[in-house]
């Protein structure tokens, strides 16, 4: 089947088998390997991408379901060679160690901050509760999201 979709604002087309999972279209066919596969059982959120602005697990969707849709992956965060404040936040607050969960955390965090510019710690913890981190722990990840929220608020105030 022919699918057409937009990823990070760019149009893509591919011929796919209906059983191809979205994450494999993204990684193996389109070679956007920033999106990870962790558990492959819908539990970890390493494969999180934004579908029409909402974070979803791309290992639990068929590529054909994304036909005509607009997606965003972790590659879409950096703009004109400049990291997104959320990425800066993860660096500044040591929000990653191995980095396996990070693309998913970033996509969930990005969608979350779009709706919650002044989040509480509890709200952040609930928002990332579908993204598992097995090595950094969540304390610094929460701080990284708070760091980004502050930067984004400053930017908006200016």
């Amino acid at each position: 089947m022919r699918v057409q979709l937009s990823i990070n604002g760019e149009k893509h087309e591919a011929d796919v088998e209906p059983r191809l999972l979205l994450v494999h279209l993204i990684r193996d066919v389109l070679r956007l390997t920033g999106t990870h596969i962790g558990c492959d059982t819908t539990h970890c959120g390493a494969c999180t991408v934004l579908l029409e602005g909402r974070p979803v697990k791309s290992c639990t969707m068929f590529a054909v379901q994304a036909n005509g849709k607009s997606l965003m992956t972790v590659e879409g965060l950096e703009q004109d060679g400049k990291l997104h404040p959320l990425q800066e936040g993860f660096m500044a607050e040591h929000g990653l160690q191995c980095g396996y969960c990070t693309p998913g955390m970033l996509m969930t965090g990005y969608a979350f901050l779009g709706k919650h510019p002044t989040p509480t710690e509890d709200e952040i913890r609930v928002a990332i509760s579908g993204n598992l981190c097995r090595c950094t722990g969540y304390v610094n990840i929460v701080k990284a999201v708070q760091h980004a929220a502050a930067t984004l608020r400053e930017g908006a105030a200016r």
Partner: protein
Amino acid sequence: MIPAAFEYHAPASLDDATALLARLGEEAKILSGGQSLIPLMKLRLSSPPHVVDINGIPGLSYIREADGVLAIGALTRESELEESEIVRARYPLLHDTCKVIADPLVRNLATIGGNLAHADPANDHPATMLALGAEVVARGPSGQRRLPIASFFTGPFETALAPGELLVEIRIPAPAARSGGAYFKLERKVGDFATAAVAAQLTLRSDGAVEQAGIALTNVGLTPIKAVQAETSLRGKRLDDATIAQAARLASAASEPAADLRGSVAYKKDLVRVLTGRALRKAAERADRRR
């Protein structure tokens, strides 16, 4: 994990979908949020030759309250229920429930229709709908029919839907004054199914006695369980400690859990007792606030 090959269909209308499902018969599976079906297909526990994706059918996603009924379209996502102002303000039992299903990412795709049609005894909406006295609307090639939720769940992963019939709407009676509900679920971690969970919905009279009670249980039997004796025990009574304790014992007696990694039979039965007490107290507190 790669599912077995299948043919993909994306009908653009309900009529096309029902015609297609009638033609394909047992060979086809309906795809809504895919958050149960796709994991099963990846494990090859399910390998349907045809998948009928209903996500492209317009008009199946809505939350509307009119004429004394809250009507919810089958394709409404859990996250949409969670964000709905009507649900938050007027249907606290439903609001409690959608917040504890799976995790926020799964809830962005998972649908309320899929949750009921899947009929996993571990799914959370079934007990909630039993406590609320909901109806579901099913649509097949020969038209539409309404089914009371109490006769919907016929076995584990089995419903009263005829082959090829689509669940299109869920209808919940609008709450009378002095009504309230609550859902209490014990889960080992976010994204886990319930060790046990209890849905309670109450309507109180002006003197504080119970006019109507709905109590139902999640994941402690082969189907969701409506705790009828516990419900009846409350009718006409004021909710003092002894009355709540008795209803909690009756709910526990109605449960039929199996021992598994989440706990022993005795533990789960006692958990039902404790959660029923908590759910009733919370439901009564909320009912009291909505005079």
